[in-house]
């Protein structure tokens, strides 16, 4: 190598070295991008609030109200509401009719449930930063989902409107009464959307099938309208409610971004280190769902037992099965009182009058003088005193 080549060699060598270094630093960037780390106690304290399943049964305001003070005491830096509510496994399942209607989100007559949930988080806990991390938001839950300003969605998540509110008034023939009820019910959309500073036209279109929805870009934001004359039309039908995929929601500014994981979402919020707090609160919420659903299974069995035992309460066995049925109904009432969700799914009235009437009837039957030859049955079957067990 002559002298002339030395600088060239060094130059090339250094350029190779710098190339290597610059690749290395790119690697470092990717390392850092992956480096949202869950730690023992460093970084942002994050409380996870699960909100999965069916509105009114799995998602009940009193369950969240009960933990409100615990959350205040805990005072996490961030609350992540993990929303996963689906009426069907995915859109294809929905199109094929593969779903269990009993598991659809519910409002029933209880308009106050979702606003009360929103009140817990968006009013009482408003001083704590909150993010909704949506794995699915189908139907009834959506107005509540949009009560959070910051919404992130997983790639497969959907955000769809609900026809459940319209079902409350669509059968009313008198136009005035119907109009009044329509306003009363669909107002729920704008009330909940108000917490998340959502456009009322967007919110109402999600709960009222008669509303249209179109939008016009205003910079990166969308201005929404209840007509079909804006730049793009989302809901051209007055019989359906719109739905958004994660990508659409992101593009239209309804969600902040589409993320795969909790870590991705935290990274987008400049959180590199975090630790989970309040695991007992998260567990309490999960336990509630497990418990009411276990009690639902138990209640279904008890109700089946009651019906079966009513048929057995004849002849010599009458009193035995009447007593058994009395205990069965008492257990059922007790479960329904402890878990309103069970009462709702079982289809019993709010005051449990039906069950109480059955109980009274059984007690009446048991008070009747018994005789060995008299037949009988359950309370609805009439019957006499029945015989004593040997």
């Amino acid at each position, binding site marked *: 190598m002559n002298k002339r080549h*030395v*600088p060239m060699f*060094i*130059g090339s*060598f*250094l350029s190779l*070295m710098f190339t290597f270094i610059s690749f290395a630093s790119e*690697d470092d960037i990717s*390392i*850092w991008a992956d*480096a949202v*780390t*869950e*730690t*023992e106690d*460093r970084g942002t304290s994050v409380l996870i609030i699960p909100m999965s399943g069916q509105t009114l049964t799995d998602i009940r305001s009193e369950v969240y109200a009960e933990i409100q003070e615990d959350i205040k005491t805990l005072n996490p830096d961030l609350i992540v509401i993990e929303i996963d509510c689906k009426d069907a*496994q995915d859109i*294809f*399942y929905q*199109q*094929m009719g*593969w*779903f*269990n*209607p*009993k*598991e659809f989100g519910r409002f029933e007559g209880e308009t106050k449930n979702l606003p009360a949930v929103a009140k817990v988080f968006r009013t009482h806990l408003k001083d704590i930063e909150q993010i909704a991390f949506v794995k699915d938001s189908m139907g009834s839950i959506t107005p509540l989902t949009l009560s959070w300003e910051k919404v992130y969605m997983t790639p497969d998540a959907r955000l769809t409107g609900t026809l459940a509110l319209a079902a409350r008034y669509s059968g009313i023939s008198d136009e005035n009464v119907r109009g009044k009820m329509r306003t009363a019910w669909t107002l729920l959309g704008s009330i909940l959307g108000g917490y998340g500073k959502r456009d009322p036209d967007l919110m109402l279109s999600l709960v009222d099938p008669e509303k249209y929805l179109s939008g016009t870009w205003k910079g990166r934001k969308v201005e929404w309208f209840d007509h079909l004359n804006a730049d793009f039309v989302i809901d051209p039908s007055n019989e359906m409610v719109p739905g958004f995929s994660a990508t659409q929601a992101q593009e239209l500014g309804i969600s902040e971004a589409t993320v795969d994981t909790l870590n991705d979402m935290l990274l987008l919020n400049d959180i590199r280190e975090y*630790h*989970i707090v309040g695991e007992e609160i998260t567990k309490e919420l999960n336990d509630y769902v497990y418990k009411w659903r276990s009690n639902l299974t138990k209640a279904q069995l008890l109700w*089946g*037992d009651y019906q*079966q035992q009513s048929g*057995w309460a004849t002849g010599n066995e009458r009193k035995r099965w009447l007593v058994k049925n009395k205990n069965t109904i008492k257990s059922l009432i007790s479960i329904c009182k402890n878990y309103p969700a069970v009462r709702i799914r079982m289809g019993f009235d709010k005051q449990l009058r039906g069950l109480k009437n059955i109980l009274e009837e059984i007690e009446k039957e048991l008070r009747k003088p018994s005789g060995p030859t008299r037949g009988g049955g359950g309370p609805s079957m009439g019957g006499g005193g029945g015989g004593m067990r040997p």
Partner: protein
Amino acid sequence: MMDFMNLKKYLLISAFLLVVSSVFAEPVELTLKDGTVWNGETGEQISLVIHKGRNKSTVEGTLSRNAGQFIVVTTDTRDQVIFISDIDSISTESTTNTNVEDVDTANSEEPAESTPKPTKKVKPKVGKLSKGVFLLPLDGGVGEIIRSTEIREIAEHADTYGPGQIIILDINSPGGSVLTGVQMRDLLYDIRKRHRVIAWVDRATSGGAFLSFCCDEIYFRRSSNFGSITMWSGNFQGAAEPEMQAWITQLESVLAKSSRTPLFAAPMVVFAAQLSYDIDEETGKITYYDTTEGEFILSDGESVEVLSITADQAEHCGLSDGTADTFDELAILLDLDEWNEVDEEGRKLASNWKMNLERAGIEINELFGEFNGNVEAQSNGERIMKQIKAGKKLLSWANKLGESAMNFGLDDGFLGGPDRVAAIKRQIKELEQQR
């Protein structure tokens, strides 16, 4: 201003220093959270126990860098950043059979043991992935014989060997239940996150083809036939238009998930759809058209058959990743040195399931008969006893058959449907009352 000669000297020294720093090890002293101090140097093979949040794990690799608050450990797959405060313990993996030092003994004043400790054999973990093959034969109707359970179990078995295993679904199926197929789609997508899932098809019609599309790669046998994924109901009626369109969309998304053209979907479902393609002579790149404008026409939209293709056609049009009739041929296509089947677990699963199905086919009908009172008995009590026994055996079968139980009239209320299992339990109670 630095003159040219000085610049050369400076650059040379800088380059030298850079090279030196990358070649020679740097001493590293780490103070762990329990106060213990570990001394070592970059380039050393180390093993760490780290406690990150709720997870405790072990990392083995080369200590590449010490940045004060964290270190970088190069494992076989990547550079891993580990915060010092997450480290529970560090031990040095000696390559020269000398000592295995850890933080607890490093500062000990006790004399070192006189006998050298045996070298710890490093188990292959993340990164050192043996390319093992797990083969699961799937032979029969989807939902009828082919079900999710065996696929889930072979994946769980492969999991025990670490991520990155090759799971081969040896598919020979005339089709079957769309619902089961779609349930398997979700399962396969999940498995694909951690393993390479291969469809090796023989006959893959309808549901068999759908299942194949859900895999990462598809390989044909020379005799294979593949396609015809039309959805129809039990009385040979095609599904209604909205459902058929939804099915095409579903297929398109499944194809896209495996980077195949979604244009294969429609012609495999409805005969009116067209599909053709061109192959660039220089690059080999295939361009597909949903018209007949391509040089090679797969579906002209006029014939009365929906698209079904052979191994040659599949390879030519890029639908298949290759054709193999034997394990050795397949191994080459999979880029394996040799056919390396880890064990027979998949075959065992398939064979056990087949035996169970055969037994179920024989027993369950008889049990239903017995449960309904078709039993020989000397007395009413004996009859009831036999009925109860049959009922309990039916419940046991329902448990054993799992998702396939509904094919035998043992539905469990799935998707709000009838719950015949609950009805059997209720009937058993009734019989016990009569006893």
